[in-house]
């Protein structure tokens, strides 16, 4: 195919140099940079959302059955609180008759507030080990938690088994959680509990180094004495039973306030608290335990009591002596329990004793934490919004296809019934208007095809100030019924108006200078005018150059998109556009609505809508075929679609009053315009979401399921296209191009649409738009149309 762009038609294509310069400038244009930045932000939003839901970078591995040969015995047999101060590992036990309630995996919007309420009602504090991704999503709950006087600890960011992770990952999990905590409650914490941990005797050779590393960084690792196993949901009584330590021993007790259905936990907790209180137990936080043991040992040291009474780390009831004897310590802790306003700076050091692991977050970490939570809030809002967009486009795509198939079938059967007729056959001559600007290659073919028309016609060639002898060629062909009218270059709308004014007959056919008709095209095209209500007829434009990739794409689009759509719009009486390549109008009707206008770039859409508003019926005649040459390069295609998109928006805006009009104008405004807006504006804008979500799901969620869903959408479109091809009796082999076409077209149409929206918003003037004639400005030379 020829690569040089002949100056043809109403739009003169730019030269090669102009094109190259244009491309370089386009890439630097601020809008491209902005578009790329938005894409970057969108990617970040989706990745963040996936990360928070463990879809991105999630690791479900849990270690089991590893040996603990390298873990010191004193740790394995020690208490549930593991510290590494001074580089030495030591454990602390919970003193007798003391319970440290610990809750893992929160905060959860359903269960955690209920737990907090129970704790407050029963006047006991708890220690919550929080997952960073949940803190990010529900920061308010954490703030309340801390203000209520509870203690919080880190439970990693994504709930991974740290023994499988690299040092870098461990650091990130901890730091990210601290950031989230700082943003949520203005504190950081030094308590830690590893996911999938339990009692100290379960520490194995792989997790021990993790605890050592975290200990060096200053973290206190907390384990479990009694596990209520509430996550197994065994029933309220079992939960209470398993959570109860033997005799009067103290215990760090594990409950879960998140991670599944926790209604049993909610029921069991008050029972448990009351039961233990009845046995004389007191409740405290982990720091409360440390404080108690510290007071006890100081007491013991002070009175010189035997080591077992107060030495730190005794597992058995060294605390029994302590809790009785250490008056100040006990009083402090007893007073400290449940004093609700846990303001750490408060008069009672008791409040801060229970939250001693908390440190106020200031400076960088506070601000970064707050920024992180803001970013999370945006993502949490954005992704559901995009999902809604995806749903909209899903409904629109399926709805459109359903409508098209039903209505197209009806249209086909109705119009092709043997007995169908518009009325008495139309045999009077018609005027065919051919506007031409520099069409020296094509005008001869055009006129030749018209000369073979079976219907009596007069041909009016309106030469729009061509510079390449188009008019001379037209005249030289010597056809008897051809009239050539010359005018100064004024644009296609003006040329058509000129032709209509000079037409002798009551019906005019409008076409492009490079369109080729078949012999019976005109005859078929004008038959609908036998019905006096019909004001205009749209013909069937076909792509001639369909053997290139771009040509084949457009061929599919013309057959499926335009022509299938036109059948639907015909029946619904809201066709928005008669193709400029082949359309017929009543001459009087055209003059009545003011002729073709310069107001928009899509004069064909403009006049069609105007006809609707004037009460005329616009129909589609599938058997009136015209052959056009579609744009052969991506740049030309882009240019064409950009103009069409912008022009359509202009036309819709120009006729926006029809929304509130009465009668046929109102019908178009309330039925046709919304349909056009939904299918030609809304759907293209949201359609790429199909591909975005498919890509995301394929990579991060489930490759096969996502791919299958995408293929299902494609299959739907293929079915529709095949049906359209069948109705038009086209060869099916072009459908092979369809998958690529759908993918590429979605992105291109979306970009074109955004481009034209931006242009409309910024009020810039396109190259093709004419300046308003004020007399001060001359006709821009070579401005094209």
């Amino acid at each position, binding site marked *: 195919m020829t690569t040089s762009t002949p100056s043809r038609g109403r739009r003169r294509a730019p030269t090669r140099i102009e094109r190259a310069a244009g491309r370089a400038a386009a890439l630097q244009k601020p809008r491209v940079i902005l578009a790329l930045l938005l894409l970057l932000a969108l990617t970040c939003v989706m990745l963040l959302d996936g990360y928070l839901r463990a879809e991105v970078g999630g690791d479900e591995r849990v270690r089991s059955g590893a040996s603990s040969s390298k873990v010191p015995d*004193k740790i394995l047999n020690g208490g549930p609180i593991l510290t590494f101060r001074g580089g030495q590992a030591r454990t602390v036990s919970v003193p007798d008759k003391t319970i440290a309630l610990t809750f893992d995996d929160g905060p959860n919007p359903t269960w955690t507030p209920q737990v907090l309420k129970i704790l407050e009602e029963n006047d006991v504090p708890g220690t919550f080990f929080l997952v960073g991704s949940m803190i990010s999503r529900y920061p308010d709950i954490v703030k309340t938690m801390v203000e209520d006087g509870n203690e919080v600890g880190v439970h990693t960011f994504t709930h991974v088994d740290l023994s499988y992770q690299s040092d870098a990952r461990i650091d990130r999990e901890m730091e990210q959680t601290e950031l989230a905590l700082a943003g949520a409650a203005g504190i950081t914490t030094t308590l830690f509990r590893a996911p999938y941990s339990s009692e100290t005797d379960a520490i194995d050779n792989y997790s021990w180094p993790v605890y050592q590393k975290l200990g060096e960084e*200053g973290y206190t690792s907390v384990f479990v004495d009694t596990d209520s196993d509430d996550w197994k949901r065994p029933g309220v009584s079992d939960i209470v039973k398993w959570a109860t330590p033997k005799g009067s021993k103290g215990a760090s007790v594990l409950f879960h306030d998140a991670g599944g259905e926790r209604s049993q936990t909610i029921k069991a907790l008050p029972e448990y608290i009351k039961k233990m209180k009845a046995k004389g137990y007191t409740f405290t936080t982990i720091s409360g335990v440390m404080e108690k043991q510290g007071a006890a040992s100081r007491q*013991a040291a002070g009175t010189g009591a035997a*080591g077992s009474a107060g030495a730190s780390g005794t597992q*058995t009831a060294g605390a029994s002596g302590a809790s009785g004897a250490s008056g100040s310590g006990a009083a402090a802790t007893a007073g400290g329990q449940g004093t609700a306003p846990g303001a750490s700076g408060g008069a009672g050091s008791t409040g801060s004793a229970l939250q001693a692991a908390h440190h106020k977050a200031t400076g960088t970490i506070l601000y970064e934490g707050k920024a992180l939570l803001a*970013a999370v809030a945006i993502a949490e809002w954005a992704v559901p919004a995009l999902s809604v967009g995806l749903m909209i486009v899903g409904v629109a795509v399926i709805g459109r296809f359903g409508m098209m198939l039903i209505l197209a079938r009806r249209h086909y059967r109705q119009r092709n019934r043997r007995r169908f007729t518009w009325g008495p056959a139309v045999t009077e001559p018609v005027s065919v208007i051919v506007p031409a600007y520099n069409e020296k290659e094509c005008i001869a073919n055009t006129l030749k095809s018209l000369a073979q028309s079976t219907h009596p016609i007069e041909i009016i060639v309106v030469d729009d100030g061509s510079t390449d002898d188009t008019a001379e060629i037209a005249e030289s062909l010597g056809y008897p019924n051809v009239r050539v009218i010359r005018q100064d270059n004024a644009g296609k709308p003006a040329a058509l108006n000129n032709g209509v004014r000079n037409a002798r007959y009551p019906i005019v056919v409008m076409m492009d200078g490079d369109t080729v008709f078949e012999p019976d095209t005109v005859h078929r095209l004008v038959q609908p005018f036998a019905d006096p209500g019909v004001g205009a007829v749209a013909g069937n434009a076909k792509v001639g150059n369909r053997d290139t990739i771009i040509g084949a794409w457009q061929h599919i689009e013309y057959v499926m998109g335009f022509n299938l759509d036109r059948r639907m719009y015909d029946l619904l009486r809201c066709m928005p556009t008669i193709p400029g390549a082949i359309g017929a109008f009543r001459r009087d009707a055209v003059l009545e609505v003011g002729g073709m206008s310069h107001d928009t770039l899509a004069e064909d859409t403009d006049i069609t809508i105007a006809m609707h508003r004037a009460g005329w019926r616009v129909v589609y005649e599938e058997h009136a075929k015209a052959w056009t040459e579609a744009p052969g390069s991506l740049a030309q295609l882009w240019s064409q679609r950009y103009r069409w998109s*912008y022009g359509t928006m202009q036309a819709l805006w120009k006729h926006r009053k029809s929304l509130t009009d009465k009668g046929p104008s109102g019908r178009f405004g309330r039925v046709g315009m919304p349909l056009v807006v939904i299918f030609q504006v809304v759907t293209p804008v949201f359609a790429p979401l199909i591909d975005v979500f498919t890509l995301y799901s394929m990579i991060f969620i489930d490759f096969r399921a996502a791919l299958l869903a995408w293929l299902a959408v494609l299959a739907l479109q293929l079915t529709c296209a095949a049906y359209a091809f069948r109705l038009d009796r086209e060869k099916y082999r072009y459908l092979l191009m369809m998958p690529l076409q759908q993918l590429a077209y979605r992105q291109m149409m979306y970009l074109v649409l955004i481009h034209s929206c931006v242009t409309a918003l910024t*009020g810039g003037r396109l190259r093709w738009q004419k300046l308003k004639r004020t007399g001060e400005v001359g006709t821009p030379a070579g401005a094209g149309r």
Partner: protein
Amino acid sequence: MFVDTSGRRSKVLRRIGLLVGTVCLGYTAVLAMAFMGWGTSLDPSSLLPFDSGQSAQRPGFGQQGGLGRQAGRPTATPSATSGSSSTSVTGSSSTAASGSSAAATAG
């Protein structure tokens, strides 16, 4: 239709575009920093709980917390107590002796 010859609309949109672009860039930057954990400098001395009076971040907490340690910088004590404090008492019969010695050195 839509053409605005005064260029005012395009100026407004340009500013909006700049704002949006900056927000996007900032958003990405915040996430990158948070993900890498930059800016969260937590060093051990500020993390250790009950750090006897060292951490200025806990106002009003008068009690010298600590499991048997006197007031004194943690870094100084290891040398003195490294021998005995590491043995977390496990309830063996020798506990009493080592326990009291721990108490003694600490006290």
